[in-house]
Structure formats: C-alpha cells, structure tokens
C-alpha cells in the first residue's frame, strides 16, 4: 500500500515538473480545483464536478482528484453553473479530504 502511494506521488511530481517546464496552466492540466476566497465571507470555486452535500453549516464539493469541504455558518450558494459557483456566508474552515 505504501509502495503504491509512493508510486502515485512520484508520477504526480513528474507530471507537475513537466507541466511546469511547459508552462501550462496547472488548474486545467492537473484537474485541480481553483478556490478564490475573499476574507471569510465569499468563495469562488472553479473546476469542480458537483455538490455532494449542502447544509447551512457545511458544503462538500467533489473535485476531480479530491473533495473539498467548506465549513461555517449561514452558508448559501449565490449561483451555481457548470463552470463556477459562488458561496457566501461565514466560512470558518476549508478542508481537503
């Protein structure tokens, strides 16, 4: 198991260095989620797959490689499209699972 993990890590680093040297945008090539936070009030999220869970104090998003969890209070989704979404409310924690 540990060996397998190591292998994945190695291939990731190799991919990253390749993308770095080719100067390609990382968020698109690696399928990473792009999160822009404005203070703790607003968050713009791009490059996600969908919502897994949405309550007033927790929003769980599915990305391509990982899941991201926003915790806080009075969370609401201002808009939600295929490309991006905006979360507003009082964000207290952003967690990668």
């Amino acid at each position, binding site marked *: 198991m540990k060996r397998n993990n190591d292998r994945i890590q190695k291939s990731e680093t190799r991919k990253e260095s390749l993308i770095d040297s080719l100067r390609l945008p990382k968020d698109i090539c690696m399928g990473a989620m792009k999160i822009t936070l404005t203070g703790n009030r607003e968050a713009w999220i791009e490059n996600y*797959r*969908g*919502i*897994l*869970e*949405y*309550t*007033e104090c927790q929003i769980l998003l599915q990305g391509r490689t990982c899941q991201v969890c926003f915790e806080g209070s009075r969370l*609401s*989704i*201002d*808009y*939600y*499209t*295929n490309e991006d*979404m905006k979360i507003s409310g009082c964000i207290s924690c952003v967690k990668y699972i």
Partner: protein
Amino acid sequence: MIKFLKYMKGYLRVRIQGFSPERFMNLCSNKGILLWDIVREGDAYCMNITLKGFWEIRPIVKKTGTRVAILERYGLPFFLPKLLKRKMFVAGLILAVGFWLVSSLFIWDIRLTGNYQITDDVFRSFLEENQVKIGMRRDTLDIEELEKQIRRQFPQITWASARLDGVRLLIDIKENDAPIQEQKPQTIPGTDLVADYNGRVVSIIVRSGVPKVAIGDTVEKGTILVEGKVPVYNEDTTVREYRYVDADADIILEHAAEFTAELPLTHTEKRYTGREKSIHYIKLGDRSWALPQNRPFLVYDAVIRESRPLMLERLDLPAFLGTVTYREYQNTEYLYTEEEAKAHLNQKLMDFLAELDEKGVQIIEKDVRIEKGTDAWALTGQFLVQEPVGERAETERIEVNETEADG
C-alpha cells in the same frame, strides 16, 4: 445589467424537496441550467431558476426523485400577459404613444432671439402672414424660404437662421447695428438759414453761403441769417450770376424763453380697500376657459398672472395656468402739500432743462417762481438762453439778365 436580462427572460423561485437535491443541482449544472440564490430551508432547498431552464428540468426531476414546487414567478414573460388583460391600460398606452407621435409632427413653440429693433409682436405678425404659426405641420415649413423671406421683409436684418429643434422653431437673427443710410432725394441746392426766434446773434461760423448778419445783431424770427445764393461778380462789380448752395453755418442766438407748468391743487389716488377676489383659468393656445363670474367689485383693477407648468414648458405645449386677481379700490382726492407740489413742479422743470441741454442750449439767466393760484399751482420760468439755430428755407432765385450782365 445581468439583473435586467434575467428580468426580461423571466425566472422562477422554486422549492426542491426529496431524496437528493444535491444530485438535482449537479445535473442542472451539467445541463447548463443556471441556478442562483440557493438557500437551505429545513430539509428543502429554495433557488432561482431561469424560465428556459425550468422547461428542461422535468427529466432531471424524474431521475432524482425530487419534487419541485413553484414559489414565485418573476420577469416580463409573467408580467406582460397580466398587463395585457387590462384593456383600458393598454388602450391608454397606445393612445399616449400615438398622441406623442402625432404631436411631434407639429410646431409647438417659436422662439426668436437676437432682435433689438424689431419687436416680438412685429415679427410674430410677419410670421403669421407667411403662414408660420404655432400648431402648423413641420413638413409644410420651408426653412430656407422662410430665411429668405425674413431678409427680404426686414432690410435691417443682416443674417437670419431658422432651425427646428424637436417641435420648437428657433429663429436667430442679427440686426444691422449701423443706421440705415436713407437715400436723400436729389434736390437742386439753394437753401437759406433763417432765424427760429427773435434774439441777438452771439456767434456765427459760416461754412457755405453768404452771412447776412454779424455778431451782436438783433434779428427777428424769419430773418435770413445765411443766404444760399452766392453772387459771382463781373469785373465792374455787377453781379454776373448767382451760384446756389445749401447754406451751412453754426449760429448761436441769444433769446428769451419761457416755461410754464401747472399742477392742480388736488389729485386722485387709488386707495386699495384690501378686498381681493381671484379666479383661475386655463389657457390653451389663444382660447381660455374660466369659471363665469359677475362683476366682482364696483371699482377695481385686475392683475393677471400667467404661468406655464414646468413640464408643459419642456414639452412646449402652449398651455398656461393663470390667475386674475381683482383688487377693489376707492378713488380718494388728496390735496397736494406745498412740498409735494414743489417737488412735482421742480421735476417738470428739470425735465424741461434736460430737454434743453440735449438740444445744446446754454442757459445764461434763469428766473423761476412757484405760486399757488386759486385752482392750481403754477410754475413760471423766464430764461435767457443761447441756442444753436438755423432753419432751412428755400432761397429766393433771381434770374440775372444776361444782357444786362454783359453790359
């Protein structure tokens, strides 16, 4: 801007309830349906969805097993049918737009600028003669012809420009500042200068003609001062012929002048009783409407105030609101006090003196008295003045006998 577009296209507020609202949202975003203002309320979600998106969510709803309830409808697609149901409103709207379109075909205001000598009234009547008036159709107005007509009618206008600004006709003119040179009728020269008054010649400077008087001479009214008949002598000092000229000279005559003025002992003054009545009226173009009213007072005067509401002025509609205020008064007779009478008479005297001054008359001696008569105040003034004189008169023409002259 985005809000406006959303409003134009229409959107709904819906409540999603059921097994997996998150899945519903993900499917919506995959299909490219915009969702916004998503708020969780208990176990349900409330969100806004575009009208177009709403028609496409039926398969998603079936797939996810959720229930959709419409809470509210927003936007023009919902508002318009409601509006169209109100027939009178729609009719009013169409009529208003129609009225607006039709009224913009006419001229509602004429403004004239740049006129100093020509009064507005004169110009207005000129325009009326040329069939240019308020309420005429815009397309019947030939602006170039009007400009030509203005220049033809008023020779003192050197430049005229007319233009239409919306429903307003702006006429801009420029008048000639220099006085117009009047063509003097051609006359055969030959005029004398004669005395206007009885008096004594104080100074005489002759530019053309033959002087007949000298400084210090006493003349009577009508005496020839400078003759416009210049004799040309033969060698033997007989007159060969006369050359006729227009006599021209500066002659100052000293003469006595008199000024009298009278002022009645009493005068009537309006004394307002303070009682006022006012009526209001509406004026459209040349016609006005007011509530009928009897003679308000026995003796009264009226003050008319007319104003145009700001909105109507912007729209250039010739509509006015007016008020006529009738003020009652009584005619009361007053006696002039001595100070008042003197002030009035002195004013008259001052006016007379100013008039003399304008004519270039110098006053040498002055003797003024104010007296109270039986029925009036009287001012008598004796003056000794020096005044430029010289009235033109046709000179006497003498035919010189040629043979006699030759002899």
